[in-house]
């Protein structure tokens, strides 16, 4: 696997969540293709210098979210039927990003209809064909 992961253990964001987020993003962007093998838990733990149980937890949740699959003795792979898992991952990553932006907008005191106007403007800019 390409070196697509960097985690910041000193951040307040749990390490396993950082790993999940980055693998989902890589799958969504196609940096990790369907069928591609992920490093073993041990290898990734050593590469990132983080606890292997933490990496294993991230892999378990990615499996539960149907982004990767693990077969005993062979290792972990990005799920085939790539489009399905990539679409799900893209949707998860985007939902997180949107939630952050909306929370931020609300926290600095924008009223809901103003946030919606901004959202519509952004939509019109990036999806002009739908306007």
């Amino acid at each position: 696997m390409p070196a697509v992961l960097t985690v910041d253990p000193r951040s307040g964001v749990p390490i396993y969540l950082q790993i999940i987020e980055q693998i989902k993003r890589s799958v969504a962007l196609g940096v990790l293709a369907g069928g591609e093998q992920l490093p073993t838990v041990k290898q990734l733990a050593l590469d990132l210098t983080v606890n292997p149980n933490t990496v294993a937890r991230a892999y378990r949740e990615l499996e539960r979210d149907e982004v990767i699959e693990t077969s005993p003795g062979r290792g972990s792979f990005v799920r085939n039927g790539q489009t399905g898992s990539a679409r799900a991952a893209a949707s998860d990553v985007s939902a997180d990003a949107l939630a952050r932006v909306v929370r931020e907008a609300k926290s600095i005191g924008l009223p809901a209809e103003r946030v919606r106007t901004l959202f519509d403007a952004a939509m019109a800019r990036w999806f002009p064909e739908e306007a």
Partner: protein
Amino acid sequence: MSTISMAHLTKTYGSLRAVDDVSIDVPSGSVFGLLGPNGAGKTTTFKCLLGLARPTSGRVSFDGAPLMAETFERIAYVPERSVLYEWMTAGEHLEMQRRSFSRFKPLRAKELMDLFSLDSRKRVRAMSKGMRTALAVVLAFSIEPEIMVLDEPTSGLDPINQRSVLRLIIQAAARGTTTVLSSHQIGQVERAADHIAVLRDGRVTLSGAVDDLKAGHKIVEGIFESDRFSLNGFASDARVVRVEKTGRILRLTVRSDGDEIARALSGMGALSVRVVDLNLEDIFLNAVDAGSPVDVVEGS
């Protein structure tokens, strides 16, 4: 199943309760970080765990059984204070380790000596603090133990060798070794450990999985229109650890994901609300910060 279990461990020296009712379970294959300021009882806890100090009360067990002579064959210990012999060479220490532990791996020992650039002909007397720590680490890892007890295993090491020790701990954990580790370098514990406990004055003040502790400790900060807002019962809210009010700003240190508290602040009319993540150092400092359960600090 937990490999190492300490139940209600207490150790008193005269009137000093060095370890006070400490209960810790270390799951098999886990790296457990023991954090605490100097004198908090970390080393005494390790000594009780290994039978080097007799607990005043409480029990220690390994795989459900009390500590027995055979258990020591499976355990490697890096003590806080060097137990190396000044007049012996590094090589003689390795030889002693080979005779004491049937699981001693000569090739592994050689690799580890090279990793830390240690010379087997050198006497301990002529070694720096860092080299002594490195030798103690080499001795511990060369027996590929099932259980490791590491008391400050990186003290005196340069950053490169610190990272090497960290990688050895991670490698061992990937093989299933169960490790208990103490370190003042919280950044290292943050990487290597999956579980931690914080000791203060001999007591456990906080424990849990590192990632869960991070998910469950936040600061929620609200900015209000004027400084005349009510604290709305936050001081008695079980989730709130600390309340700081500075003019129009209210900062709450909470033991939750912060979402509900953030919504409550919005509901109180805060102009701006944000949830701030805390890293392990912040969480540690909060846990050892003496004071009432809920501090209300008012500033201006």
